């Protein structure tokens, strides 16, 4: 094993040890059990729910003759929906502070999704026209 490899393992291992030590020493703030539930829960939700759903959607879209524009549109739409979801849900709204989450996120997300759908549709149509002519 060469020196840079060893250095990398040392550095990485040290950082991991520091992280675990901090989570334990700071237990009053980090709530290790709650932390572990979130840490493991997100992995389980991603690997066990999100990716299978993406794979199923991918199989369905793959049956289209030209799947690319639809696949790209759905991917971008899904990511932006996920980013917007906590704001759309409005969990963090507070009556005493209207400057938190001040926008109509449901409407804004619809605008964004509408734009994505429009671009996707135009791409599909443009592709068909090009093939018909060519």
């Amino acid at each position: 094993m060469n020196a840079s490899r060893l250095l990398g393992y040392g550095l990485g291992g040290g950082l991991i040890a520091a992280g675990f030590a901090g989570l334990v020493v700071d237990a009053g703030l980090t709530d290790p059990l709650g932390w572990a539930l979130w840490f493991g829960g997100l992995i389980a939700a991603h690997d066990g729910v999100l990716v299978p759903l993406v794979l199923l959607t991918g199989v369905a879209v793959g049956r289209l003759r030209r799947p690319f524009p639809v696949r790209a549109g759905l991917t971008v739409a899904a990511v932006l929906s996920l980013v917007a979801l906590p704001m759309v849900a409005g969990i963090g709204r507070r009556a005493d502070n209207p400057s938190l989450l001040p926008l109509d996120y449901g409407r804004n997300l619809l605008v964004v999704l509408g734009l994505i759908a429009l671009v996707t549709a135009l791409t599909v149509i443009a592709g068909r026209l090009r093939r018909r002519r060519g």
Partner: protein
Amino acid sequence: MRSVPGRFTSGLHSEGVAARLGLWLGISFTVAFVTGLFSHFMQHPPTWLTWPSRPVNLYRVTQGLHVIGGLATIPLLFAKLWTVYPKLWQWPPFRSVSHAVERALVLILVGGALFQTITGLLNISYAYLWPFSFPAAHYWTAYLLYGALVIHVVNEWAKIRRQLWTKEQVEPPNEVAARRRFLGTVAAASGLTVLFTVGETVRPLSGLALLAPRDPRIGPQGLPVNKSAAAAGVTAVIHDPGYRLTVTGAVRTPLSLAYDDLLRLPQHTVRLPISCVEGWSAEAEWSGVRLRDLAEMAGVAPDAVLTVESLEKGGSYRTSEVRPPHWNDPLTLLALRIDGAPLAPDHGFPVRLIAPNRPGVLQTKWVSKVVVA
């Protein structure tokens, strides 16, 4: 019978795609780690560490990068995990002890990356759905994640080199085209995420910030608020006619000044941002008394450390320390006005601290005491 990984037929579950996404993720997690540590040590500086008060926008830019860059990382991360997903089902799951250790470290890497980005997203949306303190959990998990990332890069370096720099064989053009389309889609998802959020800190783009948790134009006096006067429990006490700002401690002449006394002192106007660790920022024109003028009136040593105290009864940010570079800076004010009008209660009436290159939570509001040490 086909193995589970063998059932993934897309050519995009490939080393070439993984190497490229991995490189982008390595860069974005490095930026996040560095800017995150910067914020942590700015908010909790050890005694030997004195931050400069300039450049004015350093904190603002680093935290904008941290949060908007973190949001842009979400599509990269999902794409990378999708690309390597077949490996999750490899059989046998562990070929040797070292392979088991490697997979355990990948578990930390994946868990850490999901934890940081998803709880980060929820945190900037004020959805505190967890029992832990977000700053503490986010801080320590960053070490876990970055440590696991360093080890992962060491393990995969040969593949990255082969895929990105030294590969000589010619790839089939349809494979290259498919990869470009996929990576282009991921880049578009990242780019649009940035486009629709970055306006919460880049003012000219605020009209495009459709999916940002803040609008830098919205709030009392056109400025967002983090903690309201009601939440701080100061709505009554800030209007007490007996209000005095005191400067005490290691001073030659202790001061006790009424609101009107402060208005009679030389007033200065500065344009400074409130820069939140949550990534948003908003500039305003603040007027008030220079902190260094008050320190001079009280006879404070130039290397003293000042602590400003709020009328709040409790809370983690009731007081904040102002070290010499910041309180000696002529831009640092005890502000009385925003754009010429007295501070709104939510912005810290009667008096708040405003200083350059400083986290928003340390721009203490409802200030009534300056203690010199």
